[in-house]
């Protein structure tokens, strides 16, 4: 847990999931595909880390899951953002923006 880079990646994945779910409720596979598409293939999501993150977010109450039928008439668990999740996303996004700006300033200074 003391590993900084893991924390960063985890946090990043959490934020990406929350951002994606902010658009519409989605199932696991849909999330993976959407994140991959939106990042233009920069991020490929492994099922293991995806479901670990989903379990974590769900336990934190940031998202909630519900079983529904898909368009292909399969049963899938659709995840949706909760109100605390939305707030969390907003504050995380602001924080992210601040950090990116700061990092950019540092990089440009040299």
């Amino acid at each position: 847990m003391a590993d900084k880079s893991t924390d960063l990646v985890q946090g990043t994945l959490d934020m990406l999931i929350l951002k994606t779910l902010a658009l519409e409720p989605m199932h696991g596979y849909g999330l993976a595909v959407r994140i991959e598409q939106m990042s233009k293939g920069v991020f490929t999501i492994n099922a293991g880390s995806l479901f670990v993150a989903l379990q974590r977010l769900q336990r934190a109450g940031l998202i909630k899951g519900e079983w529904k039928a898909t368009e292909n008439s399969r049963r899938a668990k659709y995840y949706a953002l909760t109100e605390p999740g939305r707030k969390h996303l907003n504050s995380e996004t602001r924080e992210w923006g601040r950090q990116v700006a700061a990092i950019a300033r540092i990089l440009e200074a040299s």
Partner: protein
Amino acid sequence: MFWLRNITGGLASLFRKERVDRELDEELRTYLAMAVDEKMKQGMSRQDALRSVRLEQGNLETTKETVHAAGWESLIETSWQDLRFGARLLRKNPGFTAVAVMTLALGIGANTAIFNVIQTVVLQPLPFADPDQLVWLNGRMPQTDEAGVSPADFLDYRDSNRTFDQLAGISQTVMAGPSNLSGDKPEQVTTNLVSSVFFQTLGVPLLLGRDFQKSDEQINTPQVVILGNGIWKRDFAGDRNVLGHNITLDGQSMTVVGVLSTDIPLISQAQIWLPTPRLHFLMQLRGGHFLKVIGRLKQGVTVPQSQADLNAIAQRLAEKYPDTDQGWSLRQRSLREVLIGPVRPVLLIIWAAAGLLLLIACTNLANLFLTRSVGRQREFAVRTALGATRSRIIRQALAETLMLVLAGGTMGALAASWGVSLLRVFGPSDLPRLQEVHVNLQVVTFAFGISLLTGAMFGLIPALQFGKAGFSGLKESARNSEPAAHRRIRSSLVVAEIAVSLMLLIGAGLLIKSFWLLIHVNPGFQTQHVSTAHLSLNGLSYNDPASRVRFWQELEGRVINLPGIEAVGATSELPLTGQHSDGPFKIPGHKYGPSEFDDAHYRQVTPGYLAAMHIPLLAGRWLDQTDTAKSPGTLLVNEAFAKRFFPGQDVLGKHLDLLGDVQPHREIVGVVGNISHRALSDPQEPEMYVAYAQYAPPTMSLVVRAVADPSTLAAALHETVRTIDKDETLSKIRPLDDIVASSVSQPRFSSLLMSLFAGLAVTLAAIGIYGVMAYSVSQRTNEIGIRMSLGAGQSDVLKMVVWQGMKLAMAGALIGIVGSVLFGRFLGTMLYGVKPSDPFTFVLVSIGLFAVSLAANYIPARRAMRVDPMTALRYE
């Protein structure tokens, strides 16, 4: 909020494990199905799509495990699995489990029991309110700082100090008189004189009534009493209306003004408490130092401050009363130190011994586990190959250990509670607060605490070894051989075990030798066939000394005619009972400064006493019927007295001036042998014997030398007393042998416990050596077979194996001897007549330990000797 949800979420998945599993399973399956669908949409065949997804996403089961392991609840789950697995393994090896649990229970039980005693006796605060404020005050003068305080001085200290909330005096001279409380027959009760507000000072509340007040003291003989809790329950059936009742004590009627909430055996055995009668001539003395004083310091006052306060008062008293008070002051110690201090080192040493025993138990178990770990290398190698991580394997090994130590801890706690009840019965009677020792929550916590610590100690080494084995364990050749690291650990464990048991053995040996010397001290009197009894004459009916002398003459005259009686006598102080008084005297012609005098033990005896005790007459004559109240004052002294005060002179015919004596001028008419009066371990001191007829205190001890059966004798003695005076009665009838034995109950206790621990330690160490050697022989069967087929004889093999084991024993013994020399000095204060480095004990004990290790080595060595070379080689 987050952690709360996390916990409830985790709990939910723990308790609805199946459903959570099913959901995850379905979710993952859907996920993969969708991925496959996607690939097929892009034109792959179903087969290719499946294969490609599997390549991308990995094994479904592994993914599930990853998700699973991310939640905290999985740790509990696997731990639970580990525990169940451990329990199953332990059940499958009942022999191993029994040995391990028993070893643990022994070590933990011994430690817990001793800890329980230490907790109650040493660690717990004294059972009084604000016990840290309590101090004990002794009279101090150039010769001694163990003296009492004179009653007159006490009053001055009490009234003029500025640093104490209260000071209270207690007269250590216990007065016991006949009373008739329950109404059927007289009995002797133990009473104690205490000054006003004694119980308030001590912080012991009264259940009923009030504490003594100053007005209770303004009398010649006590008029009021406070009942102890025990006698109130026994003789007054716990009657709450007892206040105001009159009871008859020592022929006098007294009014009950209070009942104590509890008896206080720590301070006094008294059953009934009386106020110090200030108008009594003894209580007016400035020169008689017989009060012990307890003080309650004011809050915030330090001991040096109050000592300065007391010293200033002592200074003033010395100026005002130079004849009696010059050179005297008060010594101040915390009450706790006075009561508990003397037993603390004994208990701590016994505790250390118990700790060492536990250490040996741990070592043995570590060895057992190590042996087993070799057998299980393959199992662990397989598990490692199947993906178990090293931490998981160590965790599993620890879980097994945990099961064992919990079982051992439970058994140990049970053994401890049993041991504690044994200690309460058989422990030394002079160990304070022993009867208060009970198993409590703190003790149980301690038992499980050390169990876990123990588990960590003996479980971790093998567990770390398990982890190291890795894949190499799978190789066929590795199946039966033990890594060299194991052998080294195992050998050092045996060496440590032998070293520690040798230290315990030497400690026990020293204590046993010291105890043996102690009980074989010649006390100067013969104890066999002697019975003693206590008799305190009623103060009113026997007010006149002549009447007391007549009573005793008649009693002895009748007792000597009882069947089987050889001799009878009486003394004011029996040896080895704690009764003790000093007689200050001056030798005419010697120069003494102000308040200077000489001092020797002093007692009154009837003419038959010395003969009944078989104390020999060395010169002059016995005291006899010619020494009466009207004849010139006489006394006997012992050899030590003659040597100390009249070195190189003939003491017969010399005179002494006894201070405060009825006959201040006495002639020495005889010299008798020395006796051990205070303790067998103390040097025999100067003694003076005065005829009872010339100085008759009301309280005496009857001494009877008889071949009769003690129980019929007791009945006959009671009957004799009753025929002389139906209101008088004997108490505390017991053989002199008993008195001597209980005077050494503490050294007996400590040497017994030490021997017990040392015996267990040696047994465990022998098992340890045996186990290691037997294992090593079984490992070397092959090698031994080769040696024998190459021509080694049976005796060569025997020698080789025994030598291998004895090398360990010698290394251990060497370390043990060095340790004993280093730590032996802690035993110093407990030893009598033996130095902590006593060579006799060291040599004898080392030889004994070698013999045991040799035996433990010999059995496996013989097995090695009988190895059949052919079988051994085929064994491969």
